[in-house]
């Protein structure tokens, strides 16, 4: 087969109405409650009624035994377009891709994209034990470390191969914490110093406490619709410049040192017609800082293995250079299950539409959102990214 044809742009399709249901460390409410609260927030923000929503896209780990199907009846939606995206940290960007095509092609007029999860005292453990067949057969029996164990190995390999230092990872974490301090529902409420980061207790060498996300409950959502409908509804919106998605890239690599972005980044930048220098804010999927570094390198912000030097020149804070994970990311705000795959996209939308929860990124015009999801066995399988622009 010849090379893939270039994907089409998204003229006249926008995203609007960023909503976050404030996170909580633990919740006795089920995922349905959190997703329902996100829908209610979308209604309040947009002024649209349930009958106006004819497309519905859901991501959640803790919704079982339900899927998006059961939710339609639960929340009283009768959509003519429905999707359920089980891609963890890539869910937000992939939901946007799917929903944008549905609106563009007329399969739906307004799509509500929602991700939400509860966090009951035992839900993280029970999710791990049944996460995937490969992890059940070949990963979880090896110490039951869950993502901490998997990312410890990836971090170790990355540090050994590219010389990325703990200080560099720490710079990202410290900057994100600063961004999180203005977010009222962030799990982490105190500033973090580089020394505190470096001296924190060991979780799984080389990972220490502040390399690891704190699981929590929460929900995130946004609407995808036509530009005309957004204007008519009086909603601030952002445009979609380009998007990419890839699964199970480089299966021959014995350990993950790169992700699918490497295959698709040229298409991402060329379709958008911008370069990394034009980006005003970046949201990476950050369950562990090594993955943020991998995304920034693989998307072309610096060369592979050059992040130590690159990071030394950036503040990564909202008021500085290359603002990164502008609401604190998962590392400081918390990982609300599949909503962790939405947090960057929703906050980019807030920043690009001038309605940030925390500190604003001044004059934000172009935002990059990257997603990474699902340690099915030994590596993350799903990668995605989207370039968004202020209207």
């Amino acid at each position, binding site marked *: 087969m010849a090379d893939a044809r270039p994907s089409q742009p998204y003229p006249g399709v926008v995203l609007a109405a960023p909503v976050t249901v404030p996170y909580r460390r633990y919740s006795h409410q089920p995922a349905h409650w959190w997703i329902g609260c996100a829908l209610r927030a979308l209604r309040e923000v947009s002024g649209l009624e349930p009958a106006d929503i004819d497309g519905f896209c859901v991501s959640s780990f803790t919704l079982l035994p339900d899927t998006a199907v059961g939710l339609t009846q639960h929340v009283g939606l009768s959509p003519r377009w429905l999707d359920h995206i089980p891609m963890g940290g890539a869910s937000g960007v992939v939901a946007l891709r799917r929903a944008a095509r549905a609106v563009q092609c007329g399969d739906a007029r307004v799509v509500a994209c929602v991700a939400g999860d509860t966090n009951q005292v035992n839900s993280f453990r029970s999710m791990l034990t049944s996460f995937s*067949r490969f992890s*059940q057969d070949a*990963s979880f029996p090896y110490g*039951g470390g869950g993502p901490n*164990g998997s990312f410890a*190995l990836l971090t170790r*390999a990355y540090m050994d191969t590219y010389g990325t230092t703990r200080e560099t990872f720490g710079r990202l974490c410290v900057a994100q914490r600063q961004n999180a301090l203005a977010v009222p529902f962030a799990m982490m409420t105190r500033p973090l110093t580089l020394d505190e980061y470096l001296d924190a207790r060991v979780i799984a060498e080389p990972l220490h406490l502040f390399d690891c996300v704190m699981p929590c409950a929460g929900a995130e959502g946004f609407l995808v619709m036509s530009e005309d409908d957004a204007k008519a509804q009086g909603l601030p919106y952002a445009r979609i410049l380009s998007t990419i998605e890839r699964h199970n890239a480089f299966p021959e690599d*014995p350990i993950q040192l790169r992700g699918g972005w490497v295959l698709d980044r040229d298409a991402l930048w060329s379709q958008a017609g911008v370069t990394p220098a034009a980006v005003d804010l970046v949201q990476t999927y950050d369950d562990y800082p090594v993955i943020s570094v991998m995304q920034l390198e693989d998307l072309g912000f610096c060369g592979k293995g050059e992040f130590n030097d690159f990071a030394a020149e950036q503040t990564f804070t909202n008021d500085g250079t290359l603002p990164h994970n502008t609401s604190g990311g998962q590392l400081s705000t918390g990982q609300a299950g599949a909503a962790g795959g939405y947090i960057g996209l929703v906050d980019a939308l807030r920043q690009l539409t001038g309605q940030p929860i925390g500190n604003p990124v001044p004059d934000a015009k172009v935002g990059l959102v990257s997603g990474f999801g699902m340690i099915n066995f030994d590596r993350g399988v799903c990668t995605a990214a989207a370039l968004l622009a202020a209207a």
Partner: protein
Amino acid sequence: MPPPARSRAGLAFSAWAARGEFRLQVCGDCGTTSYPPRDVCPNCWSSRLEWQPAAPTGRLLADTVLHTSTNVYFRERMPWRVGTVEHESGVALLAHIHSDVPTPAQGGQPVRLTVRTDKSGQGVIVALPVEDTPHMNDEKQLRELSASVRHRRVLITDVRTDFGQALALKVREAGASRVFAGVAEPWKPFPGRDALATADHIEQVSLDVTQGDSVLELAGAIGGKTDILINTASHVRPGSTVGRNGLTAAKDEMETNYFGLLRLLQFFGPAMQGRAADGDNNAVCWVNLLSIYALSNWPAYATTSASHAAALSLAQGARADFQPSGIKVLNVFHGPLESEWYQPVSPPKVTPAKLARVVVDALEAGLEEKVVGDIAQDVMARWQENPAVLERELTQDGGAL
């Protein structure tokens, strides 16, 4: 308990691991090796995946020492070392990493790969140093994945035979801290008794597995001190089904080989289950010595075969019962033994020394199944290939394979 859930293909990996065989799936169409266990080849989508012996070599690419776990079993055994290994075939796998394996440098650290069953009874991969290191079997993680007799107390249920005696001496030589040597009707002398009596840390105890009171009494005395139980009690008589008058011999066989095992399970099982997580020298394993003809009847020893088939079935039930506690059941299958009741049978036959060595090694390797001797291995191979054909083979020429 380590996480026990496995897919059906994952159970096949475990079944090989329980025999000490490290096998990976190789595609019967394109030859691609794959892991984790799959149903379809990731290269050509063939479903003809065959479990082939895998090279025991690879390179450790990255390691970590876990200090936290969501799993209670591992939480209590932290820190725990695991790592990513690139197998010789190119597939990536996760493994438990022995502490004597050096930290991987650029290009990876060569390792020797082996398989074990963990406390949940499922197969896992262990990376060992390429060359043996001093006391490597005593390392915490490897010991957790074995049932070594070292520093443990072992009950051998019957030492009246050469086999029981060889086992008692071998187990002690291999480092057992104490051996309880069962003797039925101890007032009756038997050859070899003096040699046992003069050996250090071998204590003769009164045990007749055909008598419930006897088993109960001994379990009350030492059940809580038994870390490994090796059931050597056996009653064997040649004879076919229709060629023998009456039920006496068959009943005696069942009384020892089947009901004897059941009595032992009922009285020693609970005490061993209760001590399965009791520190480093915990209760770990139950060993059954079974005739390979438990799998398919040998007409020349028809009733003996039947009693061993019953015992094998019971052992499977016991394995399921013990699984939640982490106690392993090791079935050692043997062919004709070098003993008086197999006297008419032609060689090769299994000697006491050979059987004792195999049992001790199988415990060290944490196996759940071991086949000892040429005849038993031959029967097992035929049984695995086609049990119905084996049955027909055993009816020819009086079953002389």
